[in-house]
């Protein structure tokens, strides 16, 4: 049983996984430059996603977090077969998605929908909002033709827009309204799983909260399962039951939201959390949580890929890639020292509240 943040339990047997990702890899060949050609260098490969595994159970919201270059968006797209898998499997409700034929793929895409950061770029500027929604309903044959209009209005009200919105053009909408329309269109086909890629990153703070509350209401009302991809840790914490933390194409740590935010065991998770500004009005006096940049995905460090920025890295980390260490039924950590007391000390030394104590 998985513990939710509110302490309630929900079934967790592997069979109830609606989505299972197994050793997923997505590689992009990098074109050889003229210099590469002259020097006889082989074409190199960017391993955007380098073997990740996790599952999402029915009714659950899983947060996928990471910085740019972590591969979180590529992973989300690969799950919907919008990117080609190089290796591994995506299993949705028992079926291997990569093996689906054209017709089965159509059925799959009705059950899984994606919501993008900026729905404006995915809305046809020459279609009124009502027509855009009607098109989705007609294409996927969701309702009979004479029921389409009623269904469009129902969808609009579901996402908190009034009926007049059906007559508007995409350019007349604000960012928040567009994201509501993006949601309505995803919901039009009555999906079971929503993959949301940075759904609130482009919105103003006051509008973000409106959309987050709407997403929570929809999830509870419709029993939706969600894969919530975001770089904002506060938003992920707010939305997720479980969290998957990615770095340079690999999963560093997974756990319940409480485990990840209260008892993170991977040094990367700990330092990532430390880097987030708190709503505590005290001027900072600390050094940054993490030095340096994420290494290039063309040049991934040997062994543990986080070792070049890790404050507790040992010679072993360069030679041996860590395996998952099981900390609890729900928490897995890819660090040699996940159970080592030294790791705990990373967190103590970098206690986010350290410079605020003793006031």
């Amino acid at each position: 049983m998985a513990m939710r943040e509110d302490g309630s339990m929900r079934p967790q047997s592997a069979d109830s996984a609606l989505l299972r990702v197994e050793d997923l890899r997505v590689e992009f060949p990098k074109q050889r430059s003229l210099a590469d050609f002259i020097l006889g260098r082989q074409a190199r490969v960017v391993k955007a996603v380098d073997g990740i595994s996790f599952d999402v159970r029915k009714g659950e919201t899983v947060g996928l977090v990471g910085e740019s270059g972590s591969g979180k968006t590529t992973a989300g797209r690969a799950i919907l077969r919008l990117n080609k898998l190089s290796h591994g499997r995506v299993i949705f409700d028992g079926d291997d998605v990569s093996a689906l034929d054209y017709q089965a793929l159509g059925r799959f895409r009705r059950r899984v929908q994606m919501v993008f950061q900026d729905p404006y770029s995915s809305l046809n500027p020459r279609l009124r909002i009502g027509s855009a929604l009607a098109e989705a309903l007609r294409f996927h044959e969701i309702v009979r033709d004479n029921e389409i209009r009623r269904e469009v209005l129902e969808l609009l009200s579901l996402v908190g827009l009034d009926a007049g919105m059906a007559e508007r053009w995409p350019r007349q909408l604000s960012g928040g309204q567009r994201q509501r329309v993006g949601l309505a269109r995803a919901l039009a086909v009555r999906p079971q799983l929503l993959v949301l890629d940075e759904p609130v990153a482009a919105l103003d703070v006051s509008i973000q909260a409106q959309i987050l509350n709407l997403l929570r209401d929809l999830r509870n009302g419709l029993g939706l399962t969600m894969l919530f991809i975001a770089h904002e840790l506060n938003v992920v914490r707010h939305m997720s039951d479980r969290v998957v933390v990615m770095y340079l194409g690999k999963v560093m740590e997974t756990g319940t939201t409480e485990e990840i935010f209260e008892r993170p065991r991977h040094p990367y998770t700990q330092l990532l959390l430390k880097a987030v500004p708190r709503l505590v009005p005290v001027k900072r006096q600390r050094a940054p949580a993490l030095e340096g940049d994420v290494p290039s995905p063309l040049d991934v460090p040997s062994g543990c890929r986080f070792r070049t920025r890790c404050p507790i890295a040992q010679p072993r980390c360069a030679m041996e890639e860590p395996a998952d260490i099981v900390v609890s039924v729900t928490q897995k950590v890819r660090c040699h020292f996940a159970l080592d007391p030294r790791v705990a000390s990373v967190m103590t030394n970098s206690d986010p509240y350290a410079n605020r104590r003793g006031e």
Partner: protein
Amino acid sequence: MVDRSHSASASLLEVEDLRVEFVSSRGTLVANRNISFSVAAGETLGIVGESGSGKSVLCRAILRLLPSPPAQQTAKRIAFLGRDLMQLSERQMQEVRGQDIGMVFQNPMTSLNPVWTVGDQISEGLRIHKGLGHSEARRAAVRLLRQVGIPSPEIRVDDYPYRWSGGMIQRAVIAMAMAGSPKLLLADEPTTALDVTIQDQILSLLMELQRATHMSLVLVSHDMGVIAETSDRLMVLYAGQIVEIGRTREIFENPAHPYTEGLLRSIPNVGDKERQLTPIRGQPPDLARLEDGCPFAPRCRHVSADCWTADLQLAEVGDGHMTACLHPERIRLSKTLVDVEQ
């Protein structure tokens, strides 16, 4: 009313009654109105607001960087180091921009010229404003890059910008701004385009530079967390006007404007378990169609009849704490909503 949140004698920058209009085919859009505030030597003033609140326009107006037309800028005065910037010629303004006031803008990638080396771009300012020779300027550029935390600066100084990450480029832009040893640094959303760990590095760097040089900092952000961790005082902008200003801690603990309260209630906090979000209803106003009265009235939880007609003025509610709200007593932000008790 003049901002008196700190003693006026120590003011480095004093802006009085600034107004910026943009004239367009849709009519006249007032991007900044009744803006009066001051920045003390060595302090950080945080400016928070959403898109369209006028915060970027304000930064550019202080430096008189807004092209006219379409912008029309008026102010009683913008006093800086005893001079009124409104009275200076363009040539004199260039001196001020290069030396006394540094600036860092949001998108670091567009702040550097891609066909010049980073070192050349930093030393250009040093040669023009400080009259340094070529090799002297280069040495100074290396020193500045080291100061902003670029590893092996004596080698990287000859790199072209494309070889640098977004975080390194923002450091280089900060180095350029620091080249004139400014007394004031204007940073407009300096970390918005960056990853959270890189944002963390840049914020620590800015704080460190401020401690080392005692410069004043005006830091614009839409992120209340960033403002909380960096500013001494805070100014909240809405629809081009100051709706609240005061000491940051005081405003976080006792917000006196419903918009500030709304912002604080609508942010999920990474340190909180189950925080209920109370969004601000409605949409930000269209600046071209602002009506009389309080611009926040259509979205306000505490609105009453007088809000629709009143002429808004900042009024003092505490020591140096001012609000444009007619009814600040209606705001009872439960302190547990903001983890100030840490």
